[in-house]
């Protein structure tokens, strides 16, 4: 973990309301692992005050890319950055996906909306090790599908404007319940309701499953206790999304 002031390489549109922003950061580029995130200071002043957490989408040499939806002040400001602007970035942060073989042979990647963000570098990291990668991605409509840099993804859209008409979880479950690959493991990222559904069918099909969560964060490094994730089990206990996650084994948490 370190703080770097990184020049922005550029910002490009990647869908409606979706942008990809690149920064130059040899440090992060060389150490980041799939599922880890960076915490970005959007402006030097107080508005917005807190950093914004983003998964790393792509690595290209010393260039680190994030992909984001404009949902509020911070992401709006980021979408207006230009090449040459300087961003203060803290990272790499958090627990990455557990990709170390050999506890599985087929990696099943499921991404909902911009939950696809960590999948490209996850795919790159998996390729050497695993026998097969099955990728399912879903979005509200075709315009919101981001399919680049993935191992030929199967696509689902809520409105049926592209691929399967329904949620990515329905698509994945349908496909997998018909023929489940040998020794599979699920890696999922997306909105909480989707992850809840993934976790449920992972249990039904008895497949190991890791989910990457998202939610508000204060610090991103474990000092504010602002990002509780409820743990499974009798007594109320919380893990920290930023430090113990954002990636969790779906069975140890209550999503």
């Amino acid at each position, binding site marked *: *973990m*370190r*703080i770097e002031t990184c020049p922005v390489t550029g910002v490009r549109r990647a869908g409606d309301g979706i942008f990809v922003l690149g920064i130059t950061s040899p440090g992060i580029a060389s150490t980041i692992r799939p599922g880890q995130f960076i915490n970005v*200071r959007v402006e030097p002043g*107080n*508005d*917005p*005050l*807190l*950093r914004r957490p983003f998964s790393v989408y792509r690595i290209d040499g010393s260039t680190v890319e994030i992909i984001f939806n404009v949902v509020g002040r911070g992401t709006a400001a980021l979408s207006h950055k230009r090449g040459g602007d300087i961003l203060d970035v*803290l990272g790499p942060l958090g627990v990455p996906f557990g990709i170390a073989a050999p506890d599985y042979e087929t990696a099943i990647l499921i991404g909902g909306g911009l939950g696809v963000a960590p999948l490209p570098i996850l795919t790159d990291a998996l390729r050497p090790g695993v026998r097969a990668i099955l990728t399912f991605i879903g979005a509200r409509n075709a315009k919101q599908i981001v399919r680049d840099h993935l191992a030929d993804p199967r696509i689902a859209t809520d409105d049926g404007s592209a691929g399967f008409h329904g949620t990515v979880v329905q698509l994945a479950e349908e496909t997998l319940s018909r023929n489940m690959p040998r020794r599979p493991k699920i890696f999922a990222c997306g909105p909480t309701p989707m992850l809840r559904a993934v976790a449920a069918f992972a249990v039904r099909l008895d497949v190991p499953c890791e989910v990457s969560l998202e*939610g*508000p*964060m*204060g*610090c991103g*490094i*474990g*000092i*504010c*206790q*602002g*990002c*509780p*994730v*409820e743990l499974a089990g009798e*007594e*109320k*206990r*919380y893990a920290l999304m930023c*430090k113990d996650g954002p990636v969790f084994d779906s069975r140890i948490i209550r999503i």
Partner: protein
Amino acid sequence: MAATSFTLAGMYLKNRVLAASGTYGYGDECLDVADVTRLGGIVTKSLSLKPRAGNPPVRIAETAGGMLNSIGLANIGAHRFITEKLPFLRTVDTAVVVNIAASTVDEYCEVLSILDGEDGIDGFEINVSCPNVREGGLSFGTSCPAVAEITRRLRPLTRRPLIIKLTPNVTHISEFARAVEAEGADAVSVINTLIGMAVNVRTRAPVLSTVTGGLSGPAIKPVALAKVYETARAVRIPVIGIGGIASANDALEFLIAGASAVQVGTANFIDPAAGITIAAGINRYCDENGIEDVGELVGSLNVGAGVSVVDSWL
């Protein structure tokens, strides 16, 4: 190079900038990004007798120039602190102030007694912004008798510096400061968070799971500064200034207004090395202004003769 080290309420500090309770964990999280030995000290997360899971999500919300939190004092409890955190803290060359929270006066006493048996602790800070179960959860901190009683009961239990951390959510904070001074407190920390709230207009529900939470960050600095000024003029014991400090300039305002030291809280979330940068900036200011000891700044505010605070009709 101005002299920076000093003794605060009997506690040696290498400089006047500490990390505030609940904003620096137990001092062992930020080592990659901050050389904590360059801080005047670290105040731990509030410790209660038993571990506390804390409040359900959502615990934080960003606001204009600030943030709300309702962590619910999630902490590992006094015992695990002693076994899991203190050994490391003993090895760190900076002052360690242990902050204590409780829901009964007896619990305050018990926690302090447990910790007072350990070495490697330079002082205690008492967080009185906790719900008093006896009073149906009304905060101790807003009742002057309750705060005085906590101090009275704790004072005989330790010879270490006893710092009472006051809440700003009262009419006259100086009354509280005077009361704890009278009960033998060695210093007061001013301020804890302001009570605040945020609403999600889409769901028409509170953003925080607890409806209200504590407001912190640059937004509250002017309020904190006024409280520190009020307090410093009311008591002889040192005042530790807290609230929205994010730069050396901010810290200097507090020292000049009467704070003997400052704590940096929310700013750590944006940069865990904030306190270190601030301490360095204070030194630079002293050097540029021919100040030989940072202490010269404390309470150096020159209030123009003609001015009457009273006449300020807000």
